[in-house]
């Protein structure tokens, strides 16, 4: 093994291990009931970001010096059954796609951690926030560098869990919790699609490695080793997974709900990194998209519909974070269109630029009102508001409908609720009623003691302790 290869291995392992060590430290402390001080948590986080970012930059420089475009860091088999050719390799890839994305992840996570240090200073949930942040951070780095689809799924799941729990960060209020639950539900559907896609791909090709799935060339030059029909099947599942993660149509409704979390998490999740993870997935599997024209067309259509609907929604939101969320989604939709059209480098640059801008905007959002007041005080009147030329050209009825469409978030939540969630729950509530009748009949008396329990047995005065 040459010196360069050894260096690549050492640096690569450091990039991956850094957030994992942070997660292990904060997780162990939490599990053992050890209350770390704010200063210790912040130092650990800073150390983790620096220890991961610098080796990532060093790998980039080294790759430019050596002239290689694809570096693989193998940590061996996490598990394997050689007889069945079943293995789960911990393999990480540094290439033109993953290096910019992992550096972006490190940079933005570092910025957001620095911001949060003051933003949540002496807040009761400070430790909880940073624990969930560490889960997210580890998930993002693992997803960005994943060399196998299973590793990508591992990181993907970590990002999903931390997202849902951070949306419910203010957990004494019901709305954030309900929204966290909603986002988790959408994520589980997306994860299910991802898992089926991963296993189908594994089943079709016998491998989960991207290098095998996407051909020998470094990204983006690979060619998928599956037929167009299989590409359409697997790609459609991956598109559903990406749509769930990046809030594309028809799952867009969860994005403004996710803004219930604290501003730093909104910035890092839904402004910059997490919301682009679906786009990243599509970029990573872009050779599969190339293998099927109908699949590419579907990607373009989903992106286009998302962009158009999100821009109309962004214009009528009454809160700044909601407005920014839909503005983000508009850009994500355009990025998806770019991916569908095969403009991969453009999509990558678009992701980086958009994520950075949106992080800044979201972190500035809490002080935006003060800025507006300052501006209005300076000019001595309200800020002028003008409607666009386009809207003046439209008839009143269309404008009114457009407003309703945007304000009701494209009726997407309503449709999902009315057509899927409510019938599903009604079906099982009906089954529950049938079961009750059956057990009542069998026991010749009301069979459920659980019907008689108080709603809030924990209320003072009711304690059994």
């Amino acid at each position, binding site marked *: 093994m040459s010196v360069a290869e050894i260096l690549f291995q050492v640096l690569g392992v450091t990039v991956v291990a850094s957030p994992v060590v942070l997660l292990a430290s904060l997780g162990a402390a*939490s*599990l053992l009931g050890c209350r770390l001080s704010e200063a210790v948590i912040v130092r650990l986080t800073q150390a983790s970001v620096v220890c991961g970012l610098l080796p990532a930059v060093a790998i980039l420089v080294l790759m430019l010096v050596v002239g290689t475009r694809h570096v693989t860091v193998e940590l061996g088999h*996490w*598990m394997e*059954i*050689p*007889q*069945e050719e*079943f293995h*789960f390799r911990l393999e990480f890839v540094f290439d033109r796609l993953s290096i910019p994305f992992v550096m972006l992840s490190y940079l933005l996570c570092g910025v957001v951690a620095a911001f949060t240090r003051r933003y949540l200073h002496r807040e009761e949930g400070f430790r909880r926030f940073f624990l969930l942040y560490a889960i997210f951070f580890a998930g993002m780095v693992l997803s960005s560098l994943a060399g196998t689809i299973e590793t990508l*799924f*591992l990181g993907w*799941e*970590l990002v999903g869990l931390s997202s849902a729990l951070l949306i*419910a960060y203010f*957990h*004494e209020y*019901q709305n954030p*919790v309900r929204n*966290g*639950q909603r986002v*988790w*539900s959408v994520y*589980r*559907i997306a*994860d*299910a699609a991802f898992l*089926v896609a991963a*296993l*189908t791909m*594994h*089943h079709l090709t016998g491998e989960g490695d991207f290098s095998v799935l996407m051909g020998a060339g470094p990204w983006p030059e690979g060619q998928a080793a599956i037929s167009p029909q299989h590409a359409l099947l697997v790609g459609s599942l991956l598109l559903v997974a990406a749509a769930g993660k990046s809030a594309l149509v028809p799952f867009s409704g969860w994005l403004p709900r996710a803004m219930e979390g604290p501003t730093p998490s909104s910035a890092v999740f839904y402004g910059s990194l997490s919301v682009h993870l679906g786009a990243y997935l599509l970029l990573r599997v872009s050779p599969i998209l190339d293998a099927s024209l109908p699949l590419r067309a579907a990607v373009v259509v989903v992106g286009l519909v998302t962009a158009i609907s999100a821009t109309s929604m962004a214009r009528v939101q009454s809160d700044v974070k909601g407005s920014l969320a839909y503005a983000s989604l508009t850009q994500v939709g355009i990025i998806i269109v770019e991916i569908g059209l095969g403009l991969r480098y453009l999509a990558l640059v678009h992701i980086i630029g958009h994520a950075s801008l949106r992080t800044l905007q979201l972190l500035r959002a809490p002080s935006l009102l003060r800025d507006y007041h300052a501006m209005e005080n300076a000019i001595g009147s309200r800020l002028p508001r003008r409607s666009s030329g386009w809207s003046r050209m439209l008839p009143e009825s269309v404008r009114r409908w457009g407003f309703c469409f945007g304000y009701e978030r494209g009726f997407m939540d309503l449709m999902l609720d009315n057509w899927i969630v409510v019938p*599903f*729950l009604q*079906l*099982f*509530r009906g*089954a*529950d009623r049938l*079961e009750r009748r*059956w*057990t009542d009949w*069998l*026991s*010749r*008396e009301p*069979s459920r*003691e*659980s019907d008689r*329990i*108080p*709603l*809030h*047995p*924990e*209320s*003072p005065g009711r*304690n*059994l*302790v």
Partner: protein
Amino acid sequence: MSELHLPWLELSILIPLFGAGWVGWSGEGHSARRHTIAICTMALLSAIGEWIDFNSLGTFEAHDHWDLIGWIFHREIFVVDELSAPLLPLAALICLVTVLSTTKNKVDRVFFAQTLVSEAMLLATFSCRASWVLVGLLAVATVPPWLEMRRRGRCTRIYTLHMGVFLGLLMSGWSLLQWTHRSGEIPLLAGALLTAAVLLRSGIVPVHCWITDLFEKASFGTGILFVTPLTGAYAVMRLVLPISPDWALQSIAVLSLWTAVYASGMALVQSESRRFFCYLFVSHSSLVLVGLELATPVGLAGALCVWLSVGLSLTGFALTLRSIEARIGRTSMADFHGLFKQMPTLAGFFLLTGLASIGFPATIGFVGMELLVEGAVEVYPLVGTMVVVAAALNGIATLHAYFRIFTGRGRLSAVPLLMGSSERVAVLALTLPILLGGLLPQFQVASRYHAAIALTRQRQLTDVSPVPMEPVEDAAEENPR
């Protein structure tokens, strides 16, 4: 047959059995609890000793050194093999943590004695292969919950009816099987009767209502001990798998899959924590059965891994609910309780065990679920998809329960609700294998795959499967544990 270095099996069975007598007659209140913890710990150590000893032998099956029962009856009654080796420590651990997490205000001498008797029967069951002794143990194990419900003055009609049918099917099926073996006929009817019996014991829809009824009317601890070791799945492995043709296994797999999806949907609409747990458990245990009936090495290995993960994680999950119940009473899930502030460790443990049960990465459930889905996709892609759907619904239900119990505006209790020291030990005892099994899964996977290969071979020996036979020694050499 290989021989263990010590009589681990007999020790692990006799310690709780004699311990039950000791606690029943001499112990009172808190001392009974302490004695029970000590006895369960000794039983666990014996079971772990058996597991380590068995692994060191590198064989498919082994019996005790100084096999007293074998010497008396001239038969190998208690035998450990690849399937049961890790199940014995799992069962002993479940009993220990259940006792450890019994809060001091719930101290009941009879409960502890009954727990020890149940533990002895459970360990004896997992040490038995298909025989009249196994059938007898499966039958006798149904008695302690029934006695407890009677003692608590609850209606036992549903439980009695289901378990009565179970016993009838089991006994008649086994009798018929013995008779057909002697006459050389194909045991189709016997297989059908045994299958119906074990499906009932496993809580397959529509004969699952006895589980919810048991949790409604018996104590939570008794319910946990009766269902979480998955004795029904063990009965499937010993009594049904070796004799059933492929089409019969496929039918069971379809029924189990239907149960998994149905129960996960039902878990979403429950408004009380015990019933919620029941459906979550039924869904997971059915997923184990789906894998067992796939009868392919990967699917079977996945099911065996999920078995361990479900045993550990759902026991932990149930114990968390039980601890909450011990503090505030039975918990409604119709509204938010906001208990996070008062029990943060329990909240974390609840989430960890819940996530482990749905196969979240870095927990013990992840590997099993991956293998299970992989095995299912290999045989029937639609089945694999439905397994993923059931897991997704369980995931939604788990977080729903977490939010309902631990979030919201809490009503601060007048007394502290933090965990006691023995509860902390119980949490730690379950957390360690859940995380270690998730972070270092290879040992578990290799061991379960080896067991799956051996079980597949056993099944081929009975000539119900058209797959060509492969000597188990070869498989053992290819995949040393």
